[in-house]
């Protein structure tokens, strides 16, 4: 039995502790926001936070979560129903295309800004290089991180007529 927290709620799972956290969360907890991309920690689509630090959940066994706290894409918005600054910036910069990698991108960006609220371009590169976006939205991701950090102004697109 592995005991840990997911998005602030206590969880107990009776599964092989070698199972990657990704599959435990997707299949047992039925939280499907986190995605499977490569299975070998090469693409970052499965990024979650383990005690606040980004991990590749496809290659991190459940045993590592014992007694710890996991945060997924479903758990980063404030409880008042609004969106986090990173999520808001992802919308204002119209970042996602297919969107499949974006949970992982947002989790990596969120972790970066938590430890480094005003990152440089180099620091953004280094924090985000583990996350592949096959739609190639790197320019928009970089811009959105800077908007969320308050380094740059939003280029807000229109909504209403």
């Amino acid at each position: 039995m592995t005991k840990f927290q997911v998005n602030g709620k206590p969880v107990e799972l009776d599964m092989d502790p070698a199972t990657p956290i990704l599959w435990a969360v997707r299949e047992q907890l039925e939280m499907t926001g986190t995605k499977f991309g490569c299975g070998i920690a090469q693409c970052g689509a499965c990024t979650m936070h383990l005690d606040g630090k980004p991990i590749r959940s496809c290659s991190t066994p459940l045993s590592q979560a014992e007694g710890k706290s996991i945060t997924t894409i479903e758990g980063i918005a404030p409880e008042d129903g609004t969106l986090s600054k990173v999520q808001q910036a992802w919308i204002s910069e119209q970042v996602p295309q297919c969107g499949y990698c974006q949970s992982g991108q947002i989790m990596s960006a969120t972790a970066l800004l938590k430890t480094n609220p005003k990152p440089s371009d180099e620091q953004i590169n280094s924090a985000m290089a583990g996350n592949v976006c096959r739609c190639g939205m790197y320019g928009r991701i970089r811009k959105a991180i800077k908007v969320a950090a308050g380094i740059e102004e939003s280029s807000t697109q229109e909504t209403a007529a």
Partner: protein
Amino acid sequence: MNDTVEVEKPAKKKGKWTRRAFIGAGVAAGGALVVGVAVRPGNPVDSLKDIVAGGQGEELINSWVKIGADNVITAIVPHCEMGQGANSTIAQMLADEMDADWEKVRVMDAPADGNYVSKDALRVFAAPGFKGGETMEPTYDGLFTQISKLAGGYVTGGSSSVRSTGQNGMRIAGAAAKEMLVAAAAAEWSVPAAEITTDKSMLAHAKSGKSEPFAKFAAAAATQELPRAPKLKTSKEYKLMGRPMQRTDIPAKVNGTANFGIDGAPEGQALKYAAVKAAPIVGSRVKSMDAATAKGMPGVLQILNMGDFVAVVADGYWQAQQALNSIKTSYEKTDIDALNSNKMFANFGKALDEAGDDGGDSKASEGDVLGVMEGAAKKVEAEYRVPFLAHATMEPMNCTAWVRDGKCDIWTGTQVPLWARSAAAEGAGVGDDDVTMHSAFLGGGFGRRLEPDYVTQAARVAKATGYPVKLIWSREEDTAHDHYRPADISRFKGGLDKEGKLTSWNNVHCSTDEPAESPLVEFYDIPNVSVRNAEVEWPLKLGAWRSVGHSQHGFFVESFVDEAAHAAGKDPVEFRRELLAKSPRHLNVLNGAAKMAGWGSELPEGHGRGIALVRSFNSIVAEVAEVDMTKGMPRVTKVFCCVDAGFAMNPDGLSAQMESGIVYGLTAALYDEITLKDGAVQQSNFHDYRMMRMDDAPDIAVQIINGAPDNLGGAGEPGLPPAAPALANAIFAASGKRIRELPIAKHFA
């Protein structure tokens, strides 16, 4: 031999595209108005029979709009969302023609049902209480059903959604719906229709001060006469078209709620999971299988030898994959067991040798290429080579299937829901109509999800086991069993006259040219042209890869034009300007990109600029790449992109597609190849099929020219083809090294 040959009919005059729209409308449950439009390009026809017998290459467009009692307007779109954002833009076009409130416009995937465009559609997903009959266009009942069956009509590809369904379907549906609402209000208020104005989903009559939401007249509108040719807005009247409205699909993609194929599941049913491994060589089959270890592994439920693949079904996906990894298989021999990439390219070379200077299948022939080449002041020759490429969508191929009681349910992401439905039916051994498709976002398509092979697999496994099964390809499976962009070799000879003008162009290549225009250079003013292809055999399954043939020919043609410019001693932009003397839109785009990039201005030592221009999917795109060669491996620092897609319906969406196409094109140009050893693909995952990442992606600037408001071009693909040649040309400018074979990384190892 017959002497009489049929004289080819003169080409139909270009210009106005004729079309005929068939409009139908009805009342759905709760008084909702449903309006459908089917459009057939070509000459008007007067009977259903002619339509059903319509020739190939004609496009049938079906669009639907629903106005609910809550005044919410729903665009029912026969395209899938794979990142291109077209569904949102199509809805924007509909909303503009309707004068709808954009805040209350929703987008819905059309159901994958061959009848969705028929009267049945209303019954199926909108209208239990539907009453058709006398309000219908006389041909309407059969027409929509027949059209949908004929067209198999639910394909997302060819950068076509906005310029076909949007431009010629949704806009008409929107305009028709508005005219019917206005007519209904005019009757109710007893005022002239011309005095009624529409805005933000409201009808108003200024003189009497009346104002009501669209929904109020939805039911009455359905009884109005159907407009035969609803009046569309001119570009000056656009309110939403041409503006960077936010995409409707993005909010769900930032909080984990977006539903992709891999997330699909039947409600309240425990899923089982399947991992699969196909025979490594195309055409080979499993000869023997040793699954002794797998049988005893935790969670394993069934191990299946399906002939062309092995599957393990388990309680969890990871368990299934672990068990699969332990299975030892041997395979039947095939004809290509000994084939490797070098041998294949040697075969391509032989075919091109045989075609020579005038053999093979002619794709274009103008003037006297061989004679003029003979007398040329200077000749240029080059051979280029590109590899097979995988799509590498972020979401690996996957499909959830449940087969029971002669029925099959499918949850998957596909670019072709109706073909996927047939693929599932085949796998499940049921009829097409027994399959229910549950739509989802696609975690990338790029042409890969035009091939529903994974759907058939899932249906077969589900049928064999009886479980609802979620079948997921590992990344390794996805990389090694794609439908690949074809490898190709292309040879060129060019002749320059004494002024350095390109007067002859002779090209022969192996690929089959999809679309047919992809190797052609008709916009360049070259008087003598021969373009041919030589037939070869490919040892892998081929598929449409973002921009299809343009991905190869863009690199070939624009590299060779660059070589010709240097041979002529001319600046590559200046050289192209001369060639584009008769193509003003192309010239504007070329000049636009050159200006953005500051073409001609000085760059630091070891840096260089290259330009390329490609017209694809009716859009013209020029790109200037800047490269830094000072660190060994080329580093693309900037890309300046100028695009003329006729009219940008959503400029931010068009820009995003350019940015995306550029990165996709540069990724392949720099890093990627699928190679064969002993008949099988050698690459497996992102460590050996590399992706561009944040730290090697260039800064990209996009400028849009609206050069032809009524002649729309595509967006999803046209940004890609110029990227590779612009980079290769930049590398030459910076270093004098000419790249004639992709990927570029090979030359800097």
